[in-house]
């Protein structure tokens, strides 16, 4: 025996000799056993509005206890959280916060949900799963904000406890995933479908990066895939890129590009399309797909108007897809 191990948590399938760490940097072969270096050691702990995840159709206006450990299995050149996602766990200061303490803190701050976010919750799988299990027992919801690069077995185990997810669909191009992100496309698509099938409320985010994935044809392909595979009621967020990490040579995404993407996706048939990381007149509003009434108006992450009544449009009573506060409605 070589004391090597193969991690099957994500599609990278790292085979690790003793002393080697996986591509995510947080799983290490210690003497023939695979260990997690980040269990109970979050490096970011915040109380965020759920809109920041972004989730616009899941308990709007509520606070979410948000945690992240170091590490990610991708290496996106535009990463907005690269200081922690690309860091080695031993190089960043972490809190000592076992799952029980996460739940206690969430309750103490009056949070109705816990979000596993900022970096990649798939790579701190055991911590995410144990927190989520305890949260479920305590009546707290669980939110996964993920790039979706995880194998099906572990995803199924996790999905059992996950109420809502925002999955980052970075592109519809496998070459983009390989060249810019260090991953592949298909597992991400599989994750979105699997989460949807498992009853998780799913919203999708696409970061539009100038010159790399802003081609209208690619926007169309992404919107069509969402329509065909998760349905017209899946909220789609087009997010604005800002120069960051290894892509400081590119400009921020022009607002026209984001607005154009939103209009194209709505023309293709997606009912709820938003613009994120930017202030645009219509991009933050939820409108009724039947009568056009503004249902939820937002200013930044603040809700300034909410006309959803019992999960229905306050004007024409059409059902609005989502999980609305305390009403548990999902179409």
């Amino acid at each position: 025996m070589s004391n090597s191990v193969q991690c099957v948590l994500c599609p990278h399938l790292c085979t690790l000799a003793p002393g080697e760490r996986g591509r995510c940097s947080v799983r290490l072969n210690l003497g023939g056993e695979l260990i997690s270096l980040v269990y109970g050691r979050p490096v970011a702990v915040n109380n965020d509005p759920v809109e920041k995840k972004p989730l616009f159709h899941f308990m709007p206006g509520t606070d979410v206890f948000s945690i992240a450990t170091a590490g990610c299995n991708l290496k996106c050149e535009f990463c907005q959280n690269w200081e922690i996602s690309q860091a080695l766990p031993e190089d960043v200061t972490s809190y000592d916060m076992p799952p029980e303490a996460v739940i206690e803190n969430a309750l103490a701050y009056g949070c109705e949900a816990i979000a596993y976010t900022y970096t990649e919750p798939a790579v701190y799988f055991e911590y995410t799963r144990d927190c989520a299990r305890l949260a479920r027992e305590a009546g707290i919801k669980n939110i996964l904000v993920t790039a979706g690069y995880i194998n099906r077995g572990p995803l199924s185990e996790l999905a059992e406890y996950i109420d809502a997810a925002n999955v980052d669909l970075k592109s519809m191009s496998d070459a983009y995933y390989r060249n810019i992100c260090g991953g592949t496309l298909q597992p991400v698509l599989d994750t979105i479908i699997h989460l949807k099938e498992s009853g998780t409320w799913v919203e999708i985010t696409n970061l539009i990066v100038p010159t790399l994935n802003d081609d209208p044809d690619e926007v169309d392909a992404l919107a069509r895939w969402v329509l065909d595979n998760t349905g017209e009621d899946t909220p789609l967020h087009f997010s604005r890129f800002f120069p960051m990490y290894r892509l400081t040579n590119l400009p921020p995404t022009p607002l026209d590009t984001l607005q154009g993407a939103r209009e194209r996706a709505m023309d293709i048939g997606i009912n709820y399309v938003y613009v994120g990381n930017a202030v645009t007149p219509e991009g933050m509003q939820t409108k009724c797909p039947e009568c056009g009434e503004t249902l939820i108006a937002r200013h930044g992450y603040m809700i300034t108007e909410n006309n959803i009544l019992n999960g229905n449009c306050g004007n024409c009573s059409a059902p609005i897809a989502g999980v609305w506060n305390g009403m548990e409605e999902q179409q």
Partner: protein
Amino acid sequence: MKTVLLTVLLLAGLAFSEGDEALSTGESTYTGLFDLIMELTGSTDRSWAKPIENADMDRIIELIENGLVSCHKAEWYAVVDDE
């Protein structure tokens, strides 16, 4: 053989992941399982991904002893048998 161990683990994973529903899908379950195993084991080239690197084990052990990183047994892995 490494592939055998991985296959067993994936079998367990798939059975866990799909529960009773998978058992009732008959032939397609086996087709899906075969595809999954082939997909996962078929290509080992990850030149486009982040590299696998050696850790500074002296430092890691020291940090574990001081409680600054965790030493929590991971799940979802297989022991590789090179024989």
